[in-house]
């Protein structure tokens, strides 16, 4: 159950992860407990090495925790699931596949039909780039392809690992707006890992601040203004960024 008593979609229970073995073992994070409601947007923020990406990879089933467990939709996560999509930094596109081939990858792997993907590319304004390779795209276009690929399988959980870290400010804000629009439209659950305080405040209904070495949850900030009209330009937004900076320091 979450703090407000509603049922949770994601549960992280006493999660710990260490790399290596024996004396060379390094504890990445320990004792992480977190609940996320269905349709909620949560941002994870913390210093480098606090294990935020590892938490995301554990959520996607790419990493197995040393202790504790994760459930998504009531099922224990043991391997990557079809209803969970991950967007990596620089979109994680395969350079040898065209935009179209990248976008339909998860559907092709599962042997599912791909007919609806072209419409998705049109909605994301990249249909005209379908035959291009990632090296022929701008950073923003690459990220749109990453979004198209992630959404092609209609996931109920979207995980994002610093997806906008390599973009310029203008493109970054543009794609942040796109993430928000898509979330409002689809109401999927999403977990965003970011270094960027403003991005966390713009896209997180709750912001989980992690501590470093070994990582753990320092505090969780509620961010009720997220998604409201003109949120980015409001005084409350800047107030929230200041609050987050204090919590972060």
């Amino acid at each position: 159950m979450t703090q407000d008593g509603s049922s949770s979609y994601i549960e992280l229970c006493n999660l710990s992860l260490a790399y290596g073995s024996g004396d060379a073992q390094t504890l990445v994070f320990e004792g992480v407990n977190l609940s996320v409601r269905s349709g909620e947007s949560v941002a994870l923020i913390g210093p480098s090495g606090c294990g935020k990406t590892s938490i995301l990879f554990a959520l996607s089933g790419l990493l197995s925790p040393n202790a504790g467990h994760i459930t998504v939709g009531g099922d224990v996560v043991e391997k990557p699931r079809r209803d969970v999509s991950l967007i990596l930094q620089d979109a994680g596109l395969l350079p040898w596949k065209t935009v179209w081939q990248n976008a339909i990858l998860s559907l092709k792997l599962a042997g599912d039909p791909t007919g609806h993907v072209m419409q998705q590319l049109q909605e994301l304004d990249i249909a005209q780039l379908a035959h291009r390779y990632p090296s022929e795209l701008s950073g923003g276009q690459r990220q749109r392809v990453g979004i198209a690929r992630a959404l092609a399988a209609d996931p109920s959980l979207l995980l994002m690992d610093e997806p906008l870290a390599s973009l310029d400010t203008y493109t970054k804000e543009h794609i942040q707006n796109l993430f928000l629009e898509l979330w409002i439209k689809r109401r999927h659950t999403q977990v965003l890992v970011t270094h960027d305080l403003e991005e966390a405040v713009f896209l997180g209904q709750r912001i989980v601040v992690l501590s470093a070495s070994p990582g753990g949850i320092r505090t969780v900030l509620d961010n009720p203004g997220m998604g409201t009209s003109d949120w980015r330009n409001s005084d409350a937004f800047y107030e929230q960024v200041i609050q987050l900076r204090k919590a972060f320091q």
Partner: protein
Amino acid sequence: MKQVLGYLVSVVVLLLLWWLASATFPVIFNNPLAQKVLPPPFEVLTMLGKEWSKMGNHFIASGLRVLWGLLLSLTFAVPAGLIIGFERRLNQMMSPLVYLTYPVPKVVFLPILFVLFNLEDGSRIALITLVLSFQILLSARDAAQNIAARHTLSVRSAGANRWQLYAHVVFPASLPAILTAARISIGLAFATLYLAETFVRPRYGLGKYILENFQLNGYAKVTAGILMMGVLGFLFYILLDLLERLLCRWKFR
């Protein structure tokens, strides 16, 4: 178009250098045979015209030996190299074996191969396959070992199984390095071919043609044979280049 022009200019430069070498050898080398050993281009090209019907058989026989060697080595060495490189434990087990056998010059196995294949063509193809396989296996292994983690992660997170991971990431990511290794190794394959065609002479083969005419002091024919071996090597380079342009289109955008 620029590339074709580049090749044409290179051919003209090579012909000039050849002509210069044939003219200066008798002056540089104090040897009575130096006048004959490298005939000028015109003499060799005239000889090539005369010998064309015979040369065709030698050319095709040698070309097929290298082609079979290339195809077999790609068939065996690419999957082996990719699996060894991508599966860390297998790499730890197999790499010492590869390193121990790599420095052994493969041509020393020629007598054994001739015995195993009853002096038939299989022995020559097997030797070329052996030589090419080590180069291709090592390149495929290194390429598979160095695949960017973000590429495997993004495909694994999309639910790919092991086979799909190889099909969508490991193979396409390693293909440019494999084709480069094949291209580099073609020179080695032709050196091996010459040895294999002269150690026990087949009915047809450019190596046999060159050596036989050398023993008969037919230097124009020897040079024509060398020229055709060069042309054959060039065709293989072009073939691999085209293959790379076809299979790795993303590299040329």
